[in-house]
Structure formats: structure tokens, C-alpha cells
């Protein structure tokens, strides 16, 4: 089940907003498509990111995926446990964020609901 407590992008990321902080991670569909994730290249804390930037990179053995941010602002936290255990993104994609942005602006047009995301995945298949 795609959780309803957050928004999604067509790049297969999820965005969860709490006040001025946006948490960003990848969807279950994304982790399945990538296969076994072997490395997550995290951004640096205090990096400023603009909407649409690639802020992190997720690697499997034979593929890479850029993680774009729909939230514009400053990186305030990265999920350091992914350094040691990148497989957390396979095991529990919705419980493991990749980075958090203290945002000044969110690209609302890029965000869709869980239902819309599921329909989008369906249409892409």
C-alpha cells in the first residue's frame, strides 16, 4: 500500500512535509525497479538545493538513480544509517528518508497524491 500521509513525484520519490521541513525518500516501486541498492550518495548538510536539482544518488549494482528534490532550501539532515546499510531502502522504503530539507518553497505542481501516483505507475507499466 502506498502511504497516504505524504505526496509523490513522477520521478518515484516521496515527499513528507512537517512544518518547514520536507523529508524525501524513494517509493517501493523505485526500489523494486533498481534492485539491490548498494550505495547512497548523500548530500552535505547545509547544501542549498533548488527544486528539480539532483540532491542524492542511489546506486544498485547495475543502475543509478538521481534523487531530485521538489523542495527548495537547505539540507538539514541526511540519513546516515544508509552509509552502512543502503539495503534499508529496499527493506523499508517508506520508513527510511534520504534527506530532509528546510524549505523556502515547494514545487506543488510536481507533487501528486498516493492515488495519483499508483495510477501513474500503472500507466507506465
Amino acid at each position, binding site marked *: 500500500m502506498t502511504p497516504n500521509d505524504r505526496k509523490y513525484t513522477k520521478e518515484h520519490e516521496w515527499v513528507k512535509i512537517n512544518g518547514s521541513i520536507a523529508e524525501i525518500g524513494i517509493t517501493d516501486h523505485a526500489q523494486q525497479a533498481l534492485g539491490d541498492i*548498494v*550505495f547512497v*550518495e548523500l548530500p552535505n548538510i547545509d547544501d542549498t538545493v533548488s527544486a528539480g536539482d539532483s540532491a542524492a544518488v542511489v*546506486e*544498485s*549494482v*547495475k*543502475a*543509478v538513480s*538521481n534523487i531530485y528534490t521538489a523542495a527548495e532550501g537547505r539540507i538539514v539532515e541526511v540519513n546516515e544509517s544508509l552509509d552502512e546499510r543502503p539495503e534499508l531502502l529496499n527493506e523499508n522504503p517508506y520508513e527510511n528518508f534520504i534527506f530532509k530539507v528546510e524549505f523556502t518553497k515547494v514545487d506543488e505542481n510536481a507533487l501528486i497524491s498516493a492515488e495519483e501516483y499508483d495510477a501513474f505507475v500503472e500507466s507506465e507499466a
Partner: protein
Amino acid sequence: MRSYVPNTEPERQAMLKEIGLSETEELFSDIPRNLRLSRPLDLDKGKSEIEVRRIFKAFAENCESSMPVFRGAGAYRHYIPSVVPKLSMHSAFYTAYTPYQPEMSQGMLQAIFEYQTLICQLTGMDASNASVYDGATAAAESMLMARDIKRRRKILYSAGLHPDVQETLKTYARFAGMQAVSVPLFKDGLTDREALVKELKDSAGFILPVPNFYGLIENQAEIADLVHEQDGLLISYLNPISLGLLKRPGDSGADIAIGEGQPLGMPLSYGGPYLGFMACKAKFTRNLPGRISGETTDADGNRAYVLTLQAREQHIRRDKAASNICSNQMLCAITASIYLAVMGPGGLREAAVQSTQKAHYLAEKISSVKGMRLRYPNTPFFNEFVVDSDRDAKKIDKLVKDRGLIGGLPLSYANKGDNGILYCVTEMNSKSEMDTLISALEVSK
């Protein structure tokens, strides 16, 4: 005409027929007629082995390559034990492709893993790649590594770096939109530290040759401190034979160790193929360009090797890859491994010590020739040194050649108007060769 096509004409016809064609030309029907070459290629008729041999023998005879050499400058004639080429030219190595199918390439993958380890042992580093084209491209790749690690677009390099390496760096930097800045040498021939400190701010790193082009040995540990104070990386550019004797870069604070691996068992061969080696501290492993072999297991727990960390590379990351390198110098890396395995710690030390000792002997002898003097008499050197004299370097070169020797390199190669000569001595140069050189230099005018 030599043909390596096994199928006979009737067999080819039979195959064409199976495809449903009647003549060879039909195979190319997708190529518009007006584009096709309407004449045979204007090349000589194919030749037999005997004829090909004759042609190459004539080329070789038109070179004077059997003379003793006192020239190094980035390409060194060291002794190559017989075992080295014999083993590296095993057809299962040289006729193989990159080990993309690990189960049938365990030999190559293990050999790469061993090469990586040997380079780490030699440099005191934690990780190495499977090679790049040569020392100059290793320097260029290390510049891009430093850019990505430090997110800075300025790189410093010593004016004592090999001129070809400097030129290559500048080319890569120009197109990468980076600023490559030369740090001048002080009058002792070593890095001008004041100038270095001035440039270091906002630089991704400093490329320091040890020994430098003029044979002089820098103090890496002291330079490392200066570079690290400004949060830059120290990249040491090394002659691997010197590591039999000199302090390892990994023990002196260097972050990345690179160099030209040719002295490790590769002949001069008019400039290639040589070997670019690259090693680094553990935290930069993922920034290394090119192939890397890693240890793992198969499903039954057998130790196995695979190409690993491939998601860094061009075939996956495409335009986002840190480097475009695909083919490398694998066979040269195996050659270097076999050389290091044969030489061992004692042999590498002996080659380095003999080269140093003989170079110091020759330096002393030359500096006692009338009108000749060492340019850097008080700076420690490895196996190369610069001699200045009142006579024209090109004339001296000619004179020495007439005596059957390839003398030192006239330094006008590196700097226009420089009348110095850069001499090199290895364990290959006998005392009698050196005495012949001295007597040639002693001839007045």
C-alpha cells in the same frame, strides 16, 4: 595475401544461400549505393609473413636503438627479468576482453585484485583502480577526482612535474572548465612553498612530483601539512622504482598517489604502452575512475572476484560518470604485478639503491668535468640530475651520440632556451658505460 578467414569460398556461398542471398554484395543493401566506395582501397596488396617481417625489420634498422641510454625523463630503462614478458604474454591474458563474465575470468579478476594490492603496498594507500592509460592521464583523472571530492574548480601543480604531464593536465582542465595553476620551483629546484601557500586557498589540491622531473626529492610530509591546512588534497606523482627507497606517500600524508608505472617491467617502446596507476585513501575509493576488482563469494561461499563499484562508470552513469575511461592498460598492470612479485621488497630496494648510487657516482664525475656543474648541488636527488655547462647542450648530445651513447636529455624539451641536460642512471648502466660518457664529455668543444 594473408587471410584469417577460415571459411572457404564454397562454404561462404553455402552460408549466403542459407540466409537467402545469392551474392555477398546483397549483404550491404542497406548502404546507399552512391555512398559506397566504388573502387578498391588504395593499399598495397596483402603480404606474407616473410614480407611483413622484412618491412618491420627495415623500420627497426632505421632506428639506432641498441645504444646505452642515459636518458630518463619519464621513461626509464630498468632490467626486465625474463619471467615478466613470458608470463604476461600468456594467451589467456592477452587475448581476453575485460572480465565482464566473472565465472570465466577469475584469473584476470584475481590478477587485478593482486595488482591493486601491490600498488597499495607500494604507495601506502588503501585502494587502487585497475589502471589508466599513463602517468599523464592519471594526473588528469586525479585532478577530476579532487574537483569532485572538494567541489572546487582550481587545481595546483608543481612546475617540476613532467612537461608532458603538465601539458596533458592543462588540456583536460581547459575542457573541464577548471583552472590549473603552476606553482613555481624555488632556486633549490623544489616547490616554492611561499608561492604554494599563496595559491592554496580554494584549491582542490596540489599535484606534487616525487622525485620531480629534475630528479629532486620533495618532502611530502611537510607539503602535505601546508596543503591540508587549506583543506586541499595532496596528490603525489611518483616514480614507482623510487618507492623501493623513499618514504611512501601514504605514510607522508598524501591523499592520492599516482604515477607512471612504466619502470615496473615495461620496455621503452618509443613511448607506450605504459601504465597509469592511481591509489588513494579509503574514504576516496568511490571517487576512483575506471575498473576495480573486488572480493566476494559465490552462492556456495567460494572466494570469488568481480568488477565492483561499477555504478561509478560510464556504461551505467553515462554523462554523469566521473570519467569516460573504458579500455585501460590491463596487460601492463599484469606486467607490473609480475615484475613486483619477482623483485619483491629486496629486489625493488636493490634496483632503487643501485640507480641512486650510480647516479650519484656519475653526477660527481660529470661535475668534475671542466665547465660542467650540477644545477642543484645541494638538493637530494634520486637517479636523475641536471647539469649546466658553457657548451651548447645540443652539440654535447651529438658528440655523445657519435661515441655510441644516448646521452642526457637537452632540457630545451621542457623549457625553450634551457641549455641544461637531464641525466638519468639506472642499474642497467655499467661503470664502463659511464666512463665512456665522461670521456666523451671531456673532449673539448
